[in-house]
Structure formats: C-alpha cells, structure tokens
C-alpha cells in the first residue's frame, strides 16, 4: 500500500469518526438536558407544586397551580382558534382549490410559520390587548392559536393529499356528493396523520413564552375570567429563572420538568400514532 493511499485511508477513517463524534455530541446534549432537568426538577417537585398558589415574594414554598390551569386555558383557546382554521383550510386546499389560490394560501401559511414568536406577540397585542385595554387570557390564546394555524394547515394538507385518488373515485362512483366523500371517506382515512399534525402543533405552542409576555402577561393569583391576565407555565419559568431567589429557582426547575415532560410526551404519542401503521392505507 503506497504512502499516499495509506494517508487517504487515514483521512477517510478520521473524518468519518469525526462525523460520528458530532452526532454523539448532538444527541448527548439531549440526554444531558433531560438528565439535568429530571435531577433538579425531580428533587424540587412536590404535591404543593400542583395545588398551591405562588407564595408571596420573600416567602418560600407555594406552587404553580394557577399557572398550570392558566396554561391549560390558553392552550384550550389556542386549539379552539387555530385547529379549525388549519383543518378546514387544509380541506379547501387539498380538495377544492385551484392551484393559484392554493399557492397564495400556502405561501401565507409559510410566511406566518416563519414569523418570530415575539412578533406574533406584538400582533396579538395590537389586535386584542389594545382594543380591550386589558392583558387577557383571550389575547394569549389568540397569539398561540395564530402559531398553530400554519403547522396544522400544512401537515393536514399533506396527509389529505396522500389519500389515494381511487378512494375518492370509489366514493363518488357510489353516488356520494363531494362533501360526503370528504367527511366519510377522506378525513377518516387520513385521521391518524391529522391527529399527529394537531398534536405536534399543540406541543409546539405549549412551550411558547415570547408571545405570552405581553398578551396573557402574568398573574400571581387565580385568573377568574377570560379577559383577565393569567399566569402560564412558560412565563413563570422565565420570571422565576431570572429572579434572585433560590426558592424561585428551585420552582423554575420543577416547572421546567413538568413542561418538558408534557411536551415530550405529546411528541412521542404523536409519532407513535403515526408509525402504528402508515397514515393512509396503501392502495
């Protein structure tokens, strides 16, 4: 073996090893994040965390019950607003529209998807907070819902399009009208994919903080009405993490663990739904 060939083989082996090292580093970051969060959050989480209101500033103890409920309300509103628009919009794109309209809608959705979350916050502020003159759960839900639209729309459309045409033709040959075909054949066929899309969109906005800073704002007490400011888990993590109190840091870790656990669980469930058989039957 010539020296040159040996050198080339060495370079090949070395560089390929390096790529392996890169992959290892990237994946070990996840393990590290999970491990550190579980360690720190696990030791500071307790029953109080889920049942108590935040303690007054300066006192230790207390929990984040209001933030957990606040996040749930925000996500409920967001889904109520974002999922129908994404879902029905996708049906229009996949089943009814001509290519020009589809292009415009798709382009708008991609644009919306790329908007930085803090800018979404500004938009929700000027659309909902300013007219009502109030930070509110409503405004936060609007901001998060806005972020759910493009994710739901684009992936739902993909899954609707992957339904084989033979199914559409079959239903119509039996005399079903178009909307009946969609409601009874196409959507049920693609429901796994659609469910996955909705779950992933949900998980994505569940951790969003920036759009909530000046829409849902924050609240150290229960938020009784939809037009009152509300606490939410991500914003609580942010405020507690940058605060000077050790006890708040501890609670930020606990909240981080709860939030990450929820998001990763939704992600894993969504992927499991999709992979438990393909999204659409092969025809």
């Amino acid at each position, binding site marked *: 073996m010539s020296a040159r060939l040996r050198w080339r083989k060495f370079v090949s082996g070395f560089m390929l090893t390096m*790529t392996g090292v*890169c992959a290892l580093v*990237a994946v070990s970051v996840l393990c590290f994040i999970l491990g550190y969060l579980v360690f720190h959050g696990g030791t500071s989480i307790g029953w109080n965390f889920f049942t108590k209101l935040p303690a007054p500033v300066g006192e230790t103890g207390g929990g984040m019950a209001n933030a957990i409920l606040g996040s749930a309300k925000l996500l409920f509103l967001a889904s109520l607003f974002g999922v129908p628009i994404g879902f029905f919009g996708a049906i229009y794109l996949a089943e009814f529209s001509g290519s020009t309209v589809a292009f415009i809608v798709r382009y*708008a959705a991609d644009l919306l998807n790329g908007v*930085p979350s803090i800018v979404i916050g500004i938009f929700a502020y000027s659309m909902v907070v300013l007219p009502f003159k109030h930070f509110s759960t409503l405004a936060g839900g609007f901001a998060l819902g806005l972020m759910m639209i493009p994710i739901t729309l684009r992936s739902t459309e993909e899954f609707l399009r992957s339904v084989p045409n033979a199914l559409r033709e079959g239903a119509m040959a039996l005399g079903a009208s178009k909307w009946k075909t969609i409601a009874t054949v196409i959507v049920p066929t693609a429901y796994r994919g659609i469910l996955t899309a909705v779950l992933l969109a949900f998980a994505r906005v569940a951790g969003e903080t920036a759009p909530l800073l000046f829409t849902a704002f924050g609240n150290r007490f229960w938020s009784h009405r939809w037009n009152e400011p509300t606490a939410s888990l991500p914003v609580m993590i942010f405020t507690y993490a940058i605060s000077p109190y050790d006890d708040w840091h501890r609670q930020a870790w606990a909240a981080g663990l709860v939030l990450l656990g929820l998001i990763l669980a939704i992600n*894993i469930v969504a992927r499991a739904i999709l992979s438990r058989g393909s999204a659409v039957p092969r025809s």
Partner: protein
Amino acid sequence: MATTSKTVPGASPIPGARSFLSRLREGDEIARMITFLFAASVVLVTLLLVFELWRGSALPRHKFGFAFFRTSVWDPIFDQFGALPFIYGTLVTSITALLIAVPLGIGAAIFLAELAPARLSDTLEFFIDLLAAVPSVIYGLLGVFIVIPLMRLYIQPALKSTLGFLPLFQGPAYGVGFLTAGIVLAIMVIPYIISVSREVLLSVPRDQREAALSLGSTHWESTWKVVVPFARTGIMGSIFLALARALGETMAVTMVIGNTPIISASLFSPGYSIAAVIANEFTEATGDLYLQSLIELGLVLFLLTFILNGLARLLILVTSKRGSETALA
C-alpha cells in the same frame, strides 16, 4: 404537487353538467364556501400582521427614517431611539451560533445519512426531533444555571489565556454576553440543521456514491467531494433556516445575553438583541414613540426572517428537485 388538485375528479365528469343549484342542494357548494372562508382567513391574518406592524411603526419611521438603523442611542427619556446595538447584538449572536452549529450539525448529518445503519439513523433522528421540540425557555433555564457559570469560571478564562491577544476574547468574564448567547443558540439550532441536512443528503441519488467509489475514492472522498457538493444548496437552505430561527429567538437569548445595549468587539461583553429588547421593554414602554420604536424593531425582525426563510425554502426545493430529476434520468 400543485397540480394534483386538478386531477381530483369533480363529482361530474362534464364540467357544468350539474347546475349551481343542485350542487348547493347536495351541500358541495356550501362545503366549498365554508372551507374557503377558513383558507382565506389564513391569508387575511397574515396580511393583517404585516399591515399592523407597518402601521404601528409609523411614528419612528417618519421621525428617524434610516437614522433609526445607524444611531446607537436608546434613550426613552429624551425620546431618542437608535437600533444599532440591537441589530449588532442579533447579528453577532446568530453568526456565533452558526459558526458553532454548522460544522457540528453537518458532521452529524453526514454520519446519520452516510455511515449509520438505517435503524440507528432513524433512532437518532427521533431523538434529534425531540431536541427540536424542547421549548426555548427551557434552553434559557439551562443557559442561566449551567452555561453562564461554566462560561464565567472555565471557558472564558481559558479562552482569554490562550486566545486573549484577539480583540474578540478580551475584557472581564461576566458569564453573560454575546458568546454565551451564541452557544445557547447553537445548541438550539443544531437539531434543525441536522434534520434538514440529513433529508437532503439522503435524497442524493445512490449512483453518485457508487460512481465515486468505483473510481477508487475512499468513503470519505465520495462523501465530501461528491455527495456533499451535490446536496450543497439544500444544506445552505438548512443553514438559512437555522439562521432565521436564531435571529428571531427571544427567550433563551434574553436570559443569557446580559441585556445591555453595547456595541463591543469582544464576545465576552454583555449585549442586547432585537427580540430581547422587545421582550423586556414592551410592557414598560411609556409614550407612543417608545412603543412604536419597539414595533419597528419587530418589523425589522420580521423582514429579516421573511427574506431568510424564503431563500431557505428556495434552496431546499432546488436541491430536492435536482435530486429527483437525476434519479429519473
């Protein structure tokens, strides 16, 4: 893809064979109109967003003009607003992040696409997708409690003693600052780079690899000189996508950058970014000019990410198209 909607047969084989009224009775026209409303609202909301940003930033646009981007005084009391330190901070942190994330991400993507057995590659990809789903405030949390102390105690002193002659690595080690923000951002965008680059690399036709190997190149040479150049534009796309994410990232940066409007050559210096200043000052902005200056910053951020995302999509599209065309030929 866009043409498939035309190949979906309508209920009637002959267009216009059924009257509008009968379609209405069967509900097709109603369904069409309702779903159209939803689809149209997506476009409407997007247009409204751009319009609101434009309208909301009228005051500073008229008062400062382009000086807004050139001056660096940010003084709410005297109503002087210059965005230069924020633009500088956003660019510096994003570029630092890319300098770290691109080599690591592409290396990992090459490993996943070229070397790893399919099973391992898919498993790792699953983990990396999860990594992409971790919310940014969690990265911020880890940044505050892990990266900042690490930087202050070990990394910054080490950099100073080895590379301290460069202006980049001078000044006191605060822990917070451009470099810390860049590192946290890098950790955040690596999953995007890996995910997209891996897809693009996998779409390179097999014969390209086989041809290179049959000409006697080593595995690495076939990868680096044939496969990667083939996928070059798509990889560039993934980098732009990561850059757009990094520019718009708010929470993680706000928590570790130090929040001081300084323009400094040193990466150790605390700084400020566009997204961070909006997050910190928006609720406290008194006076219309102050608030609208922040909205103009939002507009700048929007335009930056809009352009980058557009470029990214174009590049990824071009590559995957070229891949499929060559595969067919």
